[in-house]
């Protein structure tokens, strides 16, 4: 976990309800109200999708919904910008390959 629990300016992190979401079927803990991208980053998950042609991995880039590099399959819906979409308990997040037709199996 790499959460900033204490901060010299912002103080201690507020206690927030924890929720469980799944990433490619694996359960991880997220904080209610945070973005999917933040939850994955907090869980040291750095691969969000794989490109169609070159099969390279991508992750959060701009962080404010402009670049679409962080898109994933969320509750079955592909191309969801995870940096501006907030987690919900039980949400299913899947690594997206290309446009989202294939299922990603490689996560270790």
């Amino acid at each position, binding site marked *: 976990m790499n959460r900033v629990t204490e901060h*010299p300016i912002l103080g201690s992190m507020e206690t927030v309800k924890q929720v469980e979401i799944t990433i490619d079927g694996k359960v991880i803990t997220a904080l209610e109200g945070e973005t999917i991208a933040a939850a994955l980053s907090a869980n040291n998950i750095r691969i969000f999708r794989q490109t169609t042609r070159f099969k390279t991995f991508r992750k959060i880039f701009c*962080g404010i919904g402009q670049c679409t590099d962080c898109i994933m399959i969320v509750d079955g819906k592909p191309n969801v910008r995870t940096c501006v979409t907030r987690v919900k308990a039980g949400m299913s997040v899947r690594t997206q390959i290309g446009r989202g037709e294939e299922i990603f199996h490689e996560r270790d």
Partner: protein
Amino acid sequence: MKEIDLLVIGAGPAGLGAAIEAGRYGASVIIVDDQDKPGGQLFKQIHKFFGSKEHQASIRGFQIGQELLAEAGALGIEINLSTKVTGIFDDKIVSLITDDENVSSIKPRKIVLATGGAEKALTFPGWTLPGVITAGAAQTLCNIERVLPGKRIVMIGSGNVGLIVSYQLLQAGAEVAALIEAGNKIGGYAVHAAKIKRAGIPIIMGHTIISAKGKNQVEEIEIIALDKNWNHIPGSEKSFKADTICLAVGLNPDTRLARLAGCRMEYYPSLGGFLPLHDVNMESSINGIFVAGDLAGIEEANTALDEGRLAGISSAASLGYIKKELFPELRKEIWGRLGSLRDGSLGAKRLSAKRELIGEKEIHTDLSDSNTPDQPADYTLKDFQESPGFPSENRIKRGAVACIECAQEIPCNPCVDSCPSGAIIIKDSITKLPFLDQNRCTGCGLCLASCPGQAIFLLNYHYSDCKASVSFPYEYLPLPNPGETVMGVNRDGKPVAPVEIIKVDNRKRNDHTAIITVAVDKIFIHDIRSIKRGVRK
């Protein structure tokens, strides 16, 4: 279809400023924003802002955001979030989609576009690897989401964004391995650079990134030196380990909606590239569509706020809510504030671009054109000693005195207001360097926490027979404890000598800028300016 006076698109500082001013004069205003929280990028700005009292200097960005939201709320301004604009038509009908499913239309009489900017990317082999992110994304993660974007970070670019986000990453507890700058001068404020230098972060000038390496994510960064013509110098390659590379290489105005509306565009490199042309009222080439903030040229948040206020006043005036005689006065007042923010060598290019594009004398400030000499690549003790805020050696030996290490003209003056003795003076323009009236200075130290640049220190030559004391601002965790001995560091973050912590003043009025006083050997009174940062648990 709902009809209103003014639709503001974008709930950042420019949009909020526009809505508040128009609302204040009686216009019915709605703000829409595509994000699910208002404030644009303001809530990520956790540092104290520059400027003057009118610009809310010395107040942190997110607190300014809270005040603006409260003000908008008190005026009954509706902010529709998670709402995207999908069309702007000739009759100003705007089509919207909320929560990606609810489609609606609205008919405003005037529109303010305050869509902000978009960070630029930099391409190099490996730039798409996970771990290469924009500085803005890093700021969002560590200040809003409270997640570190990485453990060992390299920042590319020494503009204010690169400098500030590096500092904020340190505050959040990340390691910043280095900051890389292609040019031979720091792009942003010297005082921002000084903060991260005191923290021991190497700023590598005249270098650029040539690749990011790693299997599935960033593991290593390779940089190379550049010659005067920006060519790579073969053989100068250096590599180091990093898991995150932050790009702080500037922004472009986000012109998508302005283009959609048909606003005429022009290219102004010093303002970030293509932007909608606008006049002295911030009105675009399309009658009734105003622009403000980063969309109208990439600048700082306080500039965006004032441009927004101007757009709001102009739209309210054009709707008849402001008396014809009053409007030019209000406008002049805002242009005066904007002029002071753009004054000085760092703002000169932006000011002249704005003058060129607006083409009116109106935006002249009362100030003479800036003829500031070229800035040095780095400010040294000698530069500070020659600047008007530095006390004389005789004065230092007489007892406690403020020592202002502010040698670069930037628009800022909270130190003046903070001094109860009137010992700090900035004449003519807020960009001028602070002058210390050293005989008036009582050495109270109230100015230290007020300085957004953290550039004021308190020197007490007579702390004891053999020791002097040095006080400095400090915004990291953990805070040291009085009585502890820690390593004193110089302006480059290099160890000088062990020092004893005498006092840690973190009172409320300092607003989280702790003032730390250390006892140092008298010979180090001009060297020690901070302490080695402690290790976070």
